[in-house]
């Protein structure tokens, strides 16, 4: 099929049947475009909050020995500013753009799992509300956005702020992972015919990379959060050095998440820039494969550089050198991108509009942020400047100078598609200059403050020579950014009312989102153009210069994996990282918990026998799946029932074991062994329970005749999860009961 026209009958009805009000319409929507807009609006709301927090901090710091804010208030504000900007502005706004544009750009009618999509959004929405609810308790989180232990432990943060922080982040984390699985599955499975994976627009490619990062990085944060919560609520000592725990382990776990998080926030920005620059240079992106492949390199390297946030910890010279090499290597794929963007501009016919203004500012500012990043990768420089205002300047150059400027660029680029109207260029240019001026005023001087010895996160400072002046300039710059933001909002508001009508493709742009109306209809496309290159809409509008005549790209071989199974694999990949980190914690602590109970209290033989029940349930599941596919419904129901029984027997064995331990006064807070034992086996038990419930649902569907051979792939997706739970148990049994790896 080359030209796809979508039949009315094929259209799945995802809209709620009765629409009574506008509000209900939006709240209950499953349309990816509406959910995308809700993500963006949520991010803008929290941007106002996070920005307001920043302004309050800049007022406090505008003069030495200021008493505008109390230290306690200041500490809550910078904690909430960081947390809000990362989790409630950066991630949602990128997810929002991805939600809106990925299906359009790959020529799909919606995302892979519209209900999961809505679920992910509402988890984020309510997680964010819960986090901010902490302000009403009088104590917002105040341990910094990376909440280092022991400061964030009960002993030093006894109020509820940190608890709100943990639970809020866990809930938002679930939302982020489900959103990422959705984007991942959409890109892999729902591309229009002709669009091979090597032909997707670079924004789509970057979102694919980002979704992989989220799926594999967020669980590291979740496992650390779970351990901190157990420390705080159940009195264990994972992170309490006075009871054998480790303060440094938290840092490792946090940054195993935290460094990929930086790429989660910057890769989509790379994608946006890679869409904007070619369109307004009237040229294709220079070196598509290099831009795409260098992102893969960044994803891979991104997991091996976390400890460059920890050079001041004193990890020893070998660790320092290892992480220095990894961090410096990232300069190469990043440099490749900058080169390719510059080469795309070179020789182009530049349309220097607002979107392009922001894109160019992105390039220059991101290069500055990247170069200071190289300075920190040269470890001895980090030993001077980390945790000073130099590092504050560095990451704001990357995250504001980079990500936020790219977002503004994308907003001016895509607003016509989303609203059907153009944003005003006059207001746009004013917005641009206010931000360029304000941003560089605020953060350029912070490099010098760092060199002058100003640590980050101080609520005030003495009247040292030069500090008042530079901090004053920095604070003044923030005002410019605030005004610039108001100009932007004004521009959006007035343009929505009386902006110029955009038409389908006001920029003569290249990719599929421009092949439909502005805004697109609920089903996205009436006709999808033929896809023979990376720029199908260019080919359509410039047949004499069509890309496929000049440049050969890999043809689409039509491989679209099964959706539920792919999602199940992505989900268990995420879960595997979670369990891996819990098991590493067990191995680390078990080698050092010298006293008290050890794994010798466990009855290996008895648990071994119960393990056999669990393992055999995998076999019966496999048989059940074959019966289902063969259409032998009653045999299927019987073997599935047996599978459930075997699972329940295993859980009963675990309950027996727990009862024995608890009656001997061995609880989760006894020592490090018991804490890690109960955490690992407890989380596994929860997973088995969830699996049993899922199997039970399948059983009921089987009995009622709703699960038949043609839906066996759904059952197979559950199977991926069930087998995974068994495999995890094999690892748990080997490490904890048989003492492997110790």
């Amino acid at each position, binding site marked *: 099929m080359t030209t796809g026209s979508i039949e009315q009958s094929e259209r799945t009805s995802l809209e709620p049947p009765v629409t009574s009000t506008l509000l209900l319409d939006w709240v209950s929507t499953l349309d990816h475009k509406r959910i995308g807009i809700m993500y963006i609006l949520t991010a803008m709301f929290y941007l106002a909050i996070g920005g307001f927090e920043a302004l309050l901090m800049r007022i406090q710091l505008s003069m030495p020995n200021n008493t505008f804010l109390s230290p306690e208030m200041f500490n809550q504000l910078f904690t909430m500013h960081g947390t809000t900007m990362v989790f409630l502005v950066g991630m949602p706004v990128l997810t929002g753009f991805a939600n809106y544009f990925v299906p359009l750009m790959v020529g799909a009618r919606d995302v892979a799992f519209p209900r999961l999509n809505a679920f992910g959004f509402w988890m984020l929405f309510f997680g964010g509300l819960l986090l901010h609810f902490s302000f009403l308790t009088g104590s917002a989180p105040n341990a910094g956005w990376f909440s280092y232990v022991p400061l964030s432990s009960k002993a030093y943060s006894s109020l509820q702020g940190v608890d709100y922080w943990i639970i809020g982040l866990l809930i938002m984390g679930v939302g982020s992972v489900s959103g990422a699985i959705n984007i991942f599955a959409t890109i892999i499975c729902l591309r229009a015919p002709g669009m091979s994976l090597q032909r997707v627009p670079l924004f789509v490619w970057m979102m694919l990379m980002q979704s992989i990062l989220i799926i594999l990085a967020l669980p590291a944060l979740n496992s650390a959060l779970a351990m901190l919560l157990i420390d705080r609520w159940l009195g264990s000592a994972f992170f309490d050095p006075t009871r054998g725990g480790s303060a440094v382990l938290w840092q490792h776990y946090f940054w195993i998440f935290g460094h990929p998080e930086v790429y989660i926030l910057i890769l989509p920005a790379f994608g946006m820039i890679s869409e904007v620059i070619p369109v307004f240079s009237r040229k294709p992106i220079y070196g598509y494969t290099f831009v795409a492949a260098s992102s893969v390199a960044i994803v891979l390297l991104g997991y091996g550089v976390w400890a460059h946030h920890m050079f001041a910890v004193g990890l020893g010279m070998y660790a320092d050198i290892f992480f220095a090499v990894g961090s410096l290597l990232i300069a190469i794929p990043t440099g490749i991108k900058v080169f390719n963007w510059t080469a795309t501009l070179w020789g182009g016919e530049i349309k220097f509009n607002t979107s392009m203004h922001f894109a160019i500012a992105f390039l*220059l500012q991101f290069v500055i942020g990247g170069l200071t990043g190289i300075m920190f990768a040269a470890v001895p420089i980090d030993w001077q400047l980390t945790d000073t205002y130099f590092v504050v300047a560095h990451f704001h150059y990357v995250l504001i100078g980079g990500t936020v400027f790219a977002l503004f660029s994308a907003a001016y680029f895509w607003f016509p598609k989303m609203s059907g109207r153009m944003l005003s260029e006059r207001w746009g240019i004013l917005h641009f200059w206010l931000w360029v001026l304000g941003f560089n005023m605020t953060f350029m001087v912070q490099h010098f403050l760092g060199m002058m010895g100003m640590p980050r996160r*101080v609520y005030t400072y003495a009247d040292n020579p030069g500090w008042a002046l530079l901090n004053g300039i920095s604070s003044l710059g923030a005002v410019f950014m605030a005004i610039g933001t108001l100009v932007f909002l004004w521009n959006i508001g007035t343009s929505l009312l009386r902006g110029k009508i955009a038409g389908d493709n006001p920029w003569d742009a290249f990719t599929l989102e421009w092949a439909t109306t502005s805004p697109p209809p609920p089903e996205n496309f009436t006709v999808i153009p033929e896809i023979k290159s990376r720029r199908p809409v260019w080919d359509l509008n410039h047949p004499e210069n069509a890309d496929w005549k000049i440049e050969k790209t890999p043809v689409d071989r039509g491989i679209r994996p099964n959706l539920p199974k792919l999602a199940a694999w992505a989900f268990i990949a995420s879960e595997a990282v979670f369990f891996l980190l819990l098991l590493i914690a067990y191995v680390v602590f078990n080698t050092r918990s010298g006293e008290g109970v050890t794994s010798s209290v466990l009855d290996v033989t008895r648990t071994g026998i119960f393990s056999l029940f669990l393992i055999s349930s995998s076999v019966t599941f496999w048989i059940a799946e074959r019966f289902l596919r063969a259409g032998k419904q009653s045999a299927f129901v019987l073997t599935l029932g047996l599978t459930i029984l075997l699972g329940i027997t295993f859980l009963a064995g675990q309950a027996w074991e727990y009862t024995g331990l608890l009656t001997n006064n061995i609880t989760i807070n006894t020592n490090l062994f018991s804490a890690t034992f109960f955490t690992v086996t407890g989380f596994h038990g929860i997973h088995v329970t969830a699996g049993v419930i899922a199997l039970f649902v399948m059983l009921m569907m089987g009995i009622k005749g709703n699960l038949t051979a043609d839906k066996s792939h759904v059952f197979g997706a559950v199977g991926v999860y069930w087998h995974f739970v068994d495999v995890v148990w094999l690892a748990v049994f080997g490490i904890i009961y048989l003492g492997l790896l110790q």
Partner: protein
Amino acid sequence: MNSVIPVLDPASPQAEAIHNLFLLVLLISAVIFAIVAGLILIAISRGRQRQTLPEQDFGSEKSEIFWMIGPVIIVIWLVAISANLIITLNAIPQADPDGKTDINEIDLIVTGHQWWWEVKYPKSGVITANEIYIPADKTKKFRVKVTSADVIHCFWVPQLGRKIDAIPGRDNYIWLQASEPGSYQGRCSEYCGAQHAWMNFKVYAVTDAEFDQWVASEQLANKQPKLLSPLANSGKQFFFQATCPQCHTIYGTPAEATIGPDLTHFAHRKEIGAGVIENTPENLALWLKDPQALKPGCKMPDFKLSDEHLKQLVAYLETLK
């Protein structure tokens, strides 16, 4: 006099090595930025004039590789010089690789507390807070053990070299050295709670003779009971009636708690509250009147002392030399 831009004003061989590396990387960065910015600006100024559809250039592997040669060389070179410096500066940690570190090999133990620094000289037994004396000597290095009594702090004297985290349950080691006599500002550089901003300290590098003299004056064994004025004497009595000894130590008295700074030689110190104010009798009275006003959130409560008690206490504390 403290330096205005301490990172650019190194006063030890270690800080100087880092400073040189920093300048070098800064220079390379400036060159790279100038090239990239120059190319972008040229491309834009030319591209804005162009009115015809440009050639549809999809890129070339050759030029990608050609343009990567420079960055790859720079990265390899940066790896080499960073690794070299890491090894040189790190060639310290545990003096004894077996981990059986001899206490005598440690010149100084610095322990971070919320929100002050405890400073111990194990060889001479001197204990003080928020100020460190070392001999200014190009050849002599002080081996410093850095740890924490509560949360994570970070020990940082920009003019003297690398910072190192003070982590509970973990001992870190650095060298401390100053080439020239002077006072060097230090700060806590890891967020550690309410009063992270006021966790400053100073390193005083002095001549060998001055150092020996300082040690002698601070040594606990040299502490002689002094004849106290009646005012100071009533201050002393009040000190022990009140809750002061529950947190502080004064050598040779029943006050032996180690929660707050050791006050044995309090009157020698130049600052109060880890840098909040200078240590003068007037400021001391101000501090004792309400520590929470000067350093909100600090562990010393507002005891609501009467003016009478304040005077007595100040008089007594001023005798602690």
